[in-house]
């Protein structure tokens, strides 16, 4: 009797155990389709957006022609959320008086499905070091937009990373920091020349290119400015062009945003639509190679 009872109990036990085990497996089997199996790559959790969001310039100065501002502006300290950069912020004395030049934060220009490139550039600048002196080659916090994140860098945020990240953040995903053709600026210059089929266009430097930007015929805001050096090429994002009266003379300042160097905003004099005071500006055509843009 005892033996029969124990046999019965074990049979029932084994049967139940098998049934439950199979049901458990079935519940998580993607083949049976009864349960959404967790993805091997879970949904990303992005770092928080950096503070001090970019505020675009709107109707502060009379814009006679699209793509350019009239008059150079001076003023005192500005917050990082203001629509200007104070160039003295990067000097040891800081932006401590009202004679310092303000550089308007550019808006519009090259854009992808997730915003303008220059807008992303301003966000990246906010994450670069803002100490008074030193190299701007670290990035924190990471900048994220539309499923792309820059990651953080304690060092090594070279100049090409800024345009690569800004374009990707804007939704233009053709460039990558893992592609040596994009990472090295001299090769990026070549890369840009063969990308016209995907909306990328290279505009060789000429005074007419600056004039067309000022008139709004071919805006350069957010384009990558390639600067020739004796030992390579440096890049920055075209920020804004400020012209002074008489505007037809083509005098003023063009500014770029950049990483990996001592100053994240650089200004170059524009004289009769020629960009001056670049590292090798003996002849205009050797100093600025051109502009990598997106249509």
């Amino acid at each position, binding site marked *: 009797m005892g033996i029969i009872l124990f046999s019965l109990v074990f049979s029932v036990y084994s049967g139940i*155990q098998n049934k439950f085990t199979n049901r458990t497996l079935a519940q998580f089997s993607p083949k049976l389709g009864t349960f959404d199996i967790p993805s091997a790559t879970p949904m990303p959790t992005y770092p928080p957006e950096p503070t001090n969001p970019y505020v675009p310039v709107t109707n502060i100065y009379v814009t006679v022609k699209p793509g350019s501002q009239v008059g150079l502006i001076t003023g005192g300290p500005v917050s990082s959320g203001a629509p200007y950069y104070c160039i003295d912020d990067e000097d040891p004395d800081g932006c401590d008086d009202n004679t310092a030049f303000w550089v308007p934060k550019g808006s519009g220009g090259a854009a992808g499905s997730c915003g303008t490139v220059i807008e992303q550039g301003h966000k990246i600048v906010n994450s670069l070091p803002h100490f008074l002196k030193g190299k701007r080659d670290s990035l924190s916090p990471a900048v994220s937009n539309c499923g792309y994140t820059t990651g953080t860098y304690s060092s090594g945020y070279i100049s090409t990373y800024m345009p690569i*990240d800004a374009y990707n953040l804007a939704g233009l995903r053709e460039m990558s920091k893992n592609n*040596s053709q994009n990472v*090295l600026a001299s090769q990026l210059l070549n890369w840009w020349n063969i990308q016209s089929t995907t909306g990328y266009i290279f505009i060789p430097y000429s005074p007419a290119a600056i004039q067309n930007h000022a008139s709004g015929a071919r805006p350069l805001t957010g384009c990558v400015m390639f600067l020739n050096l004796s030992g390579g090429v*440096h890049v920055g994002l075209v920020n804004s062009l400020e012209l*002074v009266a008489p505007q037809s003379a083509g005098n003023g300042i063009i500014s770029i945003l950049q990483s*990996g160097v001592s*100053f994240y905003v650089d200004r170059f004099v524009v004289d009769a639509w020629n960009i001056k005071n670049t590292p090798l500006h003996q002849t205009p055509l050797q100093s600025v190679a051109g502009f990598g843009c997106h249509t």
Partner: protein
Amino acid sequence: MEKLKKILQNKKAVLIVGLIVIILLFINLYSKLNKNKITQFAPDENQTEYIAPSLPPLTQSAELREAISLQQKADEEYSNWQNTTRTDFPWINELPVHSEKYFVYFDFNTKVFIGKLYPLVSDDVDEIKNEIQNKLTTDLEIPLEQYPIDWKIFPQ
């Protein structure tokens, strides 16, 4: 053995023992199922950490490392140029000076000030030049004796 035989012959005792065994087996079964569920559901801690697709891979190719290194050198050259110009010409951030009648900047390469004047017919050009020179020397403390001004006049 005799006692065991007696117990086995006692139906009540067998039922009690049987029930106890059944309960124990079900407890064992329940715990096994729970354990199974935990191992099935527990996410891999490494999987919950998102790795940004934009970050360079941990194992970069030699080609990519070389590209980064070369770009760092180019950026270093540019950075040195930025620092040198600001050290050699500490007033450079104060330029250009301008009004409706002039635009003046410093040319790094030729070490010369370029003074572009846009006078009206009624304007005194020398007066405009004096105004500029005063601004450069008094306001900006630029040693003009070291750097000549190349005047270019565009009558309006």
